[in-house]
Each structure stands twice: as C-alpha cells, then as structure tokens.
C-alpha cells in the first residue's frame, strides 16, 4: 500500500484512500472467517458425493444436474414462491394499512399496541410453530372459533389437509412478519416533516389522499427493506415449516430449506444438500438484487 497516492498533491493533508479499509479490516476478518469461508466450503462440498462420514467422491457438477431433474425439488421451489405471497406481499399490505391508520394521530396506548404487533418478532420461530400447531389442531382455537360462529363445515385439520396446509403455514408467516413491516413503516413515517402533512391537510387532503401523496412516497426505502427481509424469510423458510408440518401432507409444504436439512442430516447426501443450498442462495441473491434494482430506479 503506497503511503501517498501519486495523483495527490504533495504536502496535501488528504489521507490515503485506502486508509478506510484498515478500520473495516477487523469486521471483515470475522465476516470472512465465519460467513465467506463456510460459504465457499459449501460450494466446494457441492462438487462431491459425500455421505458425511466416508471419503467423498468428486462428481463435479453432477449434484447440480440431479437437482434440476428432481420433481420434489421443483415443487418445493413453487411452494416457496407461494409462501412469498404470505410472508412478503400480505404483511407489507397489512403493514401499510396499519401505518396509514396509526401514523396520523398520537393516541395513548400506542406503545402497547406496537409492542403487541412486534411480539411475534421476539418469540423464537420454533415456539411460534409449536403454538400454531396447537391452534390449527383438531380442537384448536381456529376450529373452535369456526364452530362457535356456526361454520362447522369449514373446520378441518388445517396442517393435514392437502388443500389448506400450505396456506395455513403461510398465514403463520403473515402473522410473524406483519408486525415487523408495520414497525419499519412507522419508523419511516416519523422522518416525514410534519409540515408536509399540515400542508396536505390545508389543501383539503383526506386520510387516503394524504397516505398516497405524502406517506407512501417517503416509505420507498423502508418498502425495499421490508420486501428484501420478508422475501428472504419466505425463500429461506425452514423453522416454521419444520415444526408445523415437516413438509407434509405429502409434499404439499416442502420447501427448499427443509430439503437441504433433510439431505444433509437425515439422508446422508451432504454434497447434494450443499448444491441445493448454493442454488437456493443464488436464487435469493438474484431476487434481492432485483428488488434493490427496482426500488432504486423508482427514486
């Protein structure tokens, strides 16, 4: 590293442009050791056929070939895309709606309200899954509620029903992530200059108009973050599915994250699992890139 870049005027007090890297280095070293290296190692493992114990066999891209021919895998990717609707789209819409309702006024008890909606974020997802398994059970609260209002025909084993299981799992995600979206948007709204709202009101804007013209445009950054976080949660979903249905009934709720786990730990196909993890990682990166690209070009 040169002490003084050649294009810098002599005697100037400007520091080397590389100096910043020194400050980043410790963080980078940790990140490299615990995130980048394992990721590279995973990519390397994906080139082997390995049962986790004996010597692995080099198979090159064979594992990837196998992945793209697997019908269970294709269904699992489709399932994950359905989950995107419930983990991302619905929570964002709900979060926006709640923001629209809450942002205009200061009311007592708002703290408690926010806490309640944030709660699912604080509870470990495994506990969330166990709880919802009870709620969805035969005599669970969901079925009890339907019976109480006379909708006996609607009741079913939600997690065991071939038609309903994926939606039921998706709604758990909706429950978990709506509060997160709301909190993001509420904090975004607080940055908005109150005079803008005042001006809008003086111009005769109603609540809807105000939301569309003032609130929404200021939330573009938060929207991008919410979309990124929730989409990743949907595509990489594992814990909720594992605890509630373990992929069943049949393959109705099988997601790629679950398959990675199964392949690596219960089926002894570590190389195949690594290949699937790499493909899943690339898919997620591509979608996140797309979301960022779109949200940036709009501003």
């Amino acid at each position, binding site marked *: 590293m040169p002490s003084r870049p050649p*294009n810098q005027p002599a005697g100037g007090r400007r520091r080397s442009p590389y100096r910043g890297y020194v400050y980043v280095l410790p963080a980078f070293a940790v990140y490299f050791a615990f995130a980048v290296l394992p990721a*590279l*190692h995973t990519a*390397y*493992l994906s080139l*082997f056929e*390995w*049962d*986790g*114990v*004996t*010597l*692995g066999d*080099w198979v090159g891209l064979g594992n990837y070939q196998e992945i793209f021919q697997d019908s269970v895998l294709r269904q699992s990717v489709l399932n994950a895309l359905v989950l995107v609707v419930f983990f991302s789209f619905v929570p964002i819409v709900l979060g926006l709606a709640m923001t629209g309702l809450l942002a205009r006024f200061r009311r007592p008890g708002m703290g408690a309200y926010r806490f309640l909606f944030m709660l699912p974020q604080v509870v470990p997802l495994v506990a969330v899954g166990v709880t919802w*398994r009870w709620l*969805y*059970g*035969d005599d669970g609260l969901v079925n009890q509620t339907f019976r109480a209002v006379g909708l006996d025909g609607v009741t*079913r*084993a*939600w*997690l*065991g*029903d*071939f038609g309903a*299981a994926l939606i039921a799992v998706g709604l758990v995600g909706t429950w978990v992530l709506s509060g997160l979206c709301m909190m993001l948007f509420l904090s975004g709204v607080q940055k908005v200059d109150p005079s803008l709202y005042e001006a809008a009101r003086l111009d005769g804007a109603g609540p809807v108009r105000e939301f569309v013209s003032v609130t929404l445009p200021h939330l573009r950054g938060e929207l991008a973050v919410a979309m990124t976080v929730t989409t990743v949660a949907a595509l990489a979903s594992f814990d909720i599915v594992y605890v509630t*249905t*373990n*992929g*069943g*009934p*049949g*393959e109705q709720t*099988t997601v790629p994250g679950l398959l990675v786990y*199964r392949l690596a*730990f*219960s*089926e*002894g*196909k*570590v*190389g195949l699992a690594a290949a699937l993890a790499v493909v899943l990682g690339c898919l997620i990166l591509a979608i996140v890139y797309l979301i960022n690209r779109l949200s940036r070009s709009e501003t």
Partner: protein
Amino acid sequence: MMERTHRVRRRVAAAVSAVALVLPLTACDALTPGSAAAAPGPASVPSSTAVPDEDITLKLQFADAPLMVDALIAAFEKKHPRIGVEPQYKTFSDYVQNLKLTMTSDSAPDIAQYAVGMTDLAADGHILDLAPYREAYGWDDAIPPVSLDQLTAGQTSEATGGRALFGVPAGLSMTGIYYNKELARKAGIDGPPTTVAQFEEQLAAAKEADLTPLGVGALDSGGLHLWAALLNQTMPTDDYWDWVNGTRGATIETPAAVTAGELVIDWGRKGYYNESANGTAQVDSTAQFAKGDSVFLINGNWAAGQLATVMGENVGFFPMPGEQAADPTVASGFSVSYAVASRTEHPEAAGLFLDFLTSPEAGQIISDNGFLPPNPDAVKKPAGVLADIADGHRRAVADDGITTFPDFAAPAMLDRLRSGVQKLVADRIDPADYLDSLQDEWEEHHAE
C-alpha cells in the same frame, strides 16, 4: 484513461484474490470431505471378558427413556464402583441428525444408543464389532436371537467369521393396537380380533356406533406404523427382511404390499380414521385416545406407560392380527440398544456395562419403566395393558415375527414413507405409485 486502467487493475486484483482463495481449497487433499475421518482405537473387542481394575468414566449418549437409563446406570455403578457412567441425553431427532458427526468426532462417547445411521457407521469401522463378546459373555442365551439379528448391520464378523454384532438391546419395542375397553363394549366388540377381516368388522361396528374407530397420528411417524402393521400381515416376513436389509434383487413392489396400501386407502374411504389423521402428531393421537376420542389406536409399547397411568384397566393391547387366525404374530419392533464407539479407550468397561444390561436385575428395571426386557422370563409378570404387550411380544418372538421398522431400509426412507402414507390416508396416491417411490429410494441407496 487513468480511471479506466484503475478499474481494470482493480478487477484484475479482485479476480486474482478470488482465485487465490479458491485455489488452496481445491488443491489441498486434506479438504476432501471425509478424508480425516479414519477412526483410531481398537477395531474389535477382546475375545474374553475382563473387569478392568482402574478408575474409568464411560460416556453414554442416548435418546430414549432417560429415567430408565439413570436407573440402569445407578444399579451398574453400585455393582462396579470403579466404573462411572456419565449419561448424555439428547432428544431423538437431535440424536439421529447428529449421530454421524458425533460418532466420528474426537469427542465421541464410549457407548451410544443404536439408531438408523449406525449401519453406515458400522460399515466404516466407527462402531465396534461385539461378536467376540457375544461368545465370551454368552449373550445368545440371555437375549432372543431375533433381537440380536437386528443389530448385525447386514455384516459378517471379521473377528469370529460369523455374524457381526454392533449392539446389545436393553428394552425392546413393538407396535400394535390399543383399544378402549369401555368404548369397545359400547360398539358391541367383545375382545381382540383374530384376523384382519375381523378387525375390519370391529372398525365398522365402531363406526356404526357413531364412534371414531381408529386413532392415527400421521403428521409424523404414526401413519407409517399403520401401513407397516398391515404390510407385516400381507408380505412374507423373509421377503420383508430382504428388502429392509438391502439384499440384492429385493423389492417392495409386490402384490402383497399393494394389498396393504389398498387397505390403508379403503379404511380411509370408509372413515375409520380420526378426521384429521394427517394433521395429528403421534403423541397427540395418543392423548386423544386416552381422553376417549377413539376406540382403537395404532402405536407402540412406548406409549403403554402413559396410557396405563391415565386409563388404568380400561385399556388393552393386541398385535395386528394376521389374515388367518393361525398365522404367526408379526409386528414391527426394535430395541433400545447400545453400541460401542471404535474411539473408546475402554472396550472392556463398555463390554461390562453392555453385559449388565442383559442381567435379570437390569431386566426388572427395564420392565418397571414400561419396556420389554430382552429376556422376559427373568422378570416379574407385569399387570394390565403391560401384560397384554408382554404377552403379544412373547408370541411374536416365538413366531420369529419381530420385524424392524421399514425406514431402516435406507436413510432417506422415512421421508418417503411419511409423505407416501399421508397420501394413502388421504386417498391421493395409487398404492403401486407409492411403492414405486419407495423402491426408487431403495435402489438409489443400495446401488453398488
């Protein structure tokens, strides 16, 4: 211009550093997965019994029945004060998922509960072949042969030239049908059925009486027990063993297995199962049965303790009956067995502990904890539903009819079985297609 060469230079630097990072990964042989996994320590056990006279602590990792294990250890330590046993309990799924990593790591326990992945570990020399001890300790007399046959991992013993032995059972399991005596009477059912056809009549009678006939928890492994119980009756036991053991040319795609699948579908169509069988976990179906929600329940003896406590005299048990009344009793079962890691430094002490498990004293502890002792003659006869189970197990053992669970056929089989049976229960798959998916998995695993 300056800007551009700068950018090019930066790109070259990035590419070089990327290659520099990946190169050592690909070039280094030590990074080849599995290359560092050779097991140190003894390859086999001594061919004579010995009581080591030094202070030793054995680590024991297990997943089933912590109370039973604690009691067994306490009794063993009392007998051999210089040998301590340190129990390491893990939940079943944690245990199975981490088994291979645990047993090949430098911190492997001395003794570990036998589980599905052990077959691969045994083949690679990470589990000790106990065949020499089998002779030395006389385990063939203390343990019924069918229980030891489950623990050979399909291998012959290098040490003795006979069958290998990779574990010793302490407590055996078996699946079958529980019934609620009071509800059964209400439906006009007067006792355990003697044939599958008679059992179907009883299910129909229960349905007729407006009761839920059969409780099934198919969300997890409970559905598998139903299918396997029927398969045990339709498929010849030898063919089934060949398939589970991976014998060349074995197949599950037989008319007999199709019949078992058709029965599962048929009973579903007739509404014999609890309505949400696919959404109910096995433990939950057991709890519902205990509350009186169904007349019959498919489960294993591991639920007996709980059911006996809650239902007392009101619960009975019978193994799934055969097609003819004279057919042998066949049921799926396995043992809570313990294997010895090749990395252990104390094979003598480990052998001593395993031998203790076969003693009458250990048998009584096992029986008191709701499991079937390997040698039932050595213990007091239990009462109630436990007696029904002990009786059924004795018949199955006498008929050579304890078959392992079908998921032992391949590591990935459990997932195929679970999702496949769920489809059978919901009438969404043809039995032949279901068997085809199992056979595909089998062939992939056993292809050599």
